[in-house]
């Protein structure tokens, strides 16, 4: 038993480290690690993964709050969407057949792997494009802000409010259903759909992930999906691993690691889909 826990801890350390290094998040690694690697039932795996997601996001979000780039108002407003989605996702997970969840997980994982290979310059192009503004609602919500850049203070406002809100609901549902953070989806919703600057989108997304995960975690723990013995090594491992990953993030070798990791994650995704279809999970 102790060996089992120790191996889980080591696996979680690795997952947290790679997750924060590649920006893919530890959440997407924990579920396949537990289900495929250790044969743990996917329901326990999702609950445990959610714990890991809260731990890493709360552990790292603290750094971003100090940056002053985060937009709390936009984040809070969008959290209505994500938390509602998260509860819906958790509710679906309670009744959905596990092999269906496994297949959906595999598909989302596949998408995440491909998206992580996308260069930042492609994503940042959205900054300069204009979309249709949502006028009065945006003004009511004070959905704008500014942040310091090397060139001085930069202002921004929010576009496509409805589209962004819907995307956030979807991000929340996936978070609640699969035990992931959906950070990438939140960034897309804010950056590509609502035309919020990339830097603000990423920090606000990091800020929101923990709240979204907490919304579904509440349901999972009270319905008995979260096991203390499993959660212990995973929570501690992912937390410590991600802290180390964040420190090394600055170095330039991340591109190669991202590529290798994307390949590994793609293989894991395909295996999840296969096992799901074969009803092994």
């Amino acid at each position, binding site marked *: 038993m102790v060996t089992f826990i120790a191996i889980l801890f080591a696996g979680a350390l690795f997952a947290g480290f790679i997750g924060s290094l590649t920006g893919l998040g530890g959440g997407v690694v924990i579920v396949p690690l537990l289900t495929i690697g250790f044969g743990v039932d996917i329901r326990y795996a999702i609950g445990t993964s959610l714990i890991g997601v809260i731990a890493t996001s709360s552990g790292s979000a603290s750094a971003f709050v100090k940056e002053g780039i985060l937009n709390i108002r936009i984040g809070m407003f969008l959290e209505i969407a994500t938390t509602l989605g998260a509860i819906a996702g958790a509710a679906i997970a309670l009744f959905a057949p596990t092999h269906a969840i496994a297949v959906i997980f595999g598909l989302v994982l596949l998408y995440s792997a491909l998206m992580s290979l996308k260069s930042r310059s492609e994503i940042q192009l959205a900054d300069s494009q204009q979309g249709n503004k949502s006028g009065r609602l945006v003004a009511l919500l004070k959905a704008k802000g500014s942040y310091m850049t090397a060139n001085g203070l930069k202002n921004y406002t929010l576009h496509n409010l409805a589209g962004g809100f819907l995307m956030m609901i979807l991000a929340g549902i996936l978070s609640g259903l699969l035990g992931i953070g959906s950070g990438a989806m939140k960034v897309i919703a804010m950056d590509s759909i609502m035309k919020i600057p990339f830097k603000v989108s990423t920090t606000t997304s990091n800020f929101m992930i923990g709240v979204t995960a907490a919304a579904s975690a509440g349901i999972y723990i*009270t319905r008995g999906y979260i096991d203390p013995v499993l959660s212990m090594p995973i929570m501690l491992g992912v937390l410590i691993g991600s802290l180390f990953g964040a420190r090394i993030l600055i170095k330039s070798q991340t591109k190669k690691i991202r590529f290798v990791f994307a390949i590994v994650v793609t293989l894991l995704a395909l295996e999840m889909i296969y096992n799901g279809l074969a009803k092994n999970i």
Partner: protein
Amino acid sequence: MRDIMGSLLRYGVLTAAILVLIGGVLFFIQHPGEIFDYSTFKGEPPRFRQVHLIVQEALNFRGRDVIQLGLLVLIATPVARVIFSLVGFLLERDWVYVVITFIVLIILFTSLFSTYLI
């Protein structure tokens, strides 16, 4: 304000991690050599699921309940952040966001205490 929020998050996670660690150690002392099987899903017993039972058993130093308590603290950390934001908006008299934050809080509390409602 932002600095306090940042520290709040970090101390919350730290407290949770310490509780989980202590709980883990207690568990190993109390259950040496026992093997658990997670390949089939059975669902956790009530003492790991309901908040009042978790607290009660944790105070009795039962290892796994101390871990669950730590997990509850972890889940509560982002909730605390939302409460803190609510206070901030109240102080700024930003009524639109007081309402918005309150809605988020209601959703969060519904999730945590869903079993008591149904």
